[in-house]
């Protein structure tokens, strides 16, 4: 995308290691990356490459050993409450209605209660879940719960949305469905997104740029721009350039990751 757009998230040489017994295990090794305004950026890497740790650092739940994190242009290392987040499990509160799950998260982000309620019900209507807004989340299927979880992240007025393998627990059909749904909704809204996935196809279908991470300790192996135009077709995977890019990423990730997908 356009390089002059405002940088919403910047990681500057972020490293992190954990002590296990007497030994220190490095997890992240000088990670630097940026997400610009309205950009969809994906991190892809083998399992256990510390992507979840990276998210915890960005969320301010943990502090890096080295390096700094900037959100919305300000130093944000170790500061909480600056991102919106969609975890792997939908993580909806079972005792709150679907609408209250969304509006309470908005309240945490400083949206006045009345406005939060209106936003939640209007958007649930828009994504076709208006009928279940007042129900408890357990009536929803896994895919529907993830839609609510995505909406909750989308509506929080924060500089960056962090999506941590949000579709990993879904079956293949639901997953493809969700990708198309998310693509459409995101292209209409254009929020700044940092997305984590194991799936190369998913990364190539959704993103503007991709960072390829190495196995632990994670380093940035490469940064790829995804050239396909927006709005993106769901059949973009048939494009020869798609296959070529996929092979490049596969080659970088090595055999370990190539097996699973």
């Amino acid at each position, binding site marked *: 995308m356009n390089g002059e757009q405002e940088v919403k998230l910047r990681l500057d040489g972020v490293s992190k290691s954990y002590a296990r017994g007497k030994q220190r295990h490095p997890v992240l090794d000088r990670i630097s990356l940026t997400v610009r305004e309205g950009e969809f950026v994906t991190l892809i890497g083998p399992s256990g490459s510390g992507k979840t740790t990276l998210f915890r650092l960005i969320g301010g*739940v943990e502090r890096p050993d080295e390096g700094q994190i900037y959100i919305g242009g300000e130093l944000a290392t170790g500061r909480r409450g600056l991102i919106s987040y969609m975890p792997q499990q939908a*993580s909806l509160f*079972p*005792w709150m209605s679907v609408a209250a799950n969304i509006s*309470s998260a908005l309240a*945490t982000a400083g949206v006045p209660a009345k406005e939060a309620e209106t936003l939640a019900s209007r958007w649930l209507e828009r994504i076709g879940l208006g009928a279940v807004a007042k129900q408890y989340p357990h009536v929803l299927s896994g895919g529907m719960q993830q839609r609510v979880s995505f909406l909750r992240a989308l509506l929080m007025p924060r500089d960056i949305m962090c999506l941590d393998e949000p579709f990993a627990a879904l079956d293949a059909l639901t997953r493809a469905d969700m990708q198309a749904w998310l693509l459409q909704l995101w292209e209409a809204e254009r929020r700044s997104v940092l997305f984590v996935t194991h799936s190369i196809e998913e990364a190539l279908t959704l993103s503007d740029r991709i960072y390829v991470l190495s196995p632990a300790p994670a380093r940035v192996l490469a940064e790829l721009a995804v050239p396909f135009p927006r709005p993106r077709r769901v059949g973009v995977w048939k494009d020869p350039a798609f296959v070529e890019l996929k092979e490049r990423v596969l080659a970088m990730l090595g055999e370990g990751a190539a097996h699973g997908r």
Partner: protein
Amino acid sequence: MANKSYRSVLLPVATLFGLALVWQASCSLFAIDPWMLPSPLDIAERMGTDAARLAEQSAATLTLALKGIGLGVGFGVVSAILFHLIPGVRTALSPVIIITQNIPLIALGPLLMLWFGFGILPKLILLVLVCYFPVAWSMLAGLGQAEPHLREYLAMIGAKRWEVLRRLELPASLPYFFSGLKITATYSISSAIVAEWLGGSEGIGHYLVLKKNGYDTAGVFSAIICIVALSLLFYGIAALLERLVIRWRPPRSEEKGGKAA
């Protein structure tokens, strides 16, 4: 389902009725003296003639138990939250609390009366001590049981401590609170009886002492029936409250089984 609930009511009722029949028959057959073991009909007759007094005394016991349960549950909830929020307090106070729980009521009651006279105060203290513990301890356990992934989600979006308490920990502790409340509900009646037995001028416990001293065994049985009825009533109210408050649980598996069959 209808057949099942029909059976679940009918079978226990038939058992109780059968037992009463055997009891009645044995009393007549072996000509047992009524002051040794009154027959069910003797007891029913006594309850009929003494109905006004029994009702009055039951009401007094009920009032005492309600006061005790109100205060005990109140203290229990407040201290569970305090113990949860301030880590040192629990460790500091738990020996004292556990010691109070292990002093028999029979020993503690007379001491309290020695110190606080024969009014309502020593009885209330006794009841509060009994009602406090099940609620405080089970709720404290519940506050720590909140699902880790929901906790992580709230941390990632930067929720404040009180938001975590209100949105996650308190609702998650409610099922634990109610299992404590159900225990407390039945304890409270039997402790009220002990308190009234030890000293007092009203209540079923007091009535029980008078009847025992007068070798009015039918009167003793009448009191027992009132006590059991009060305990069941309290338990029923606690269980009903639980069902009214906790409505977010998905349908029970047995209901699902019923539908499939």
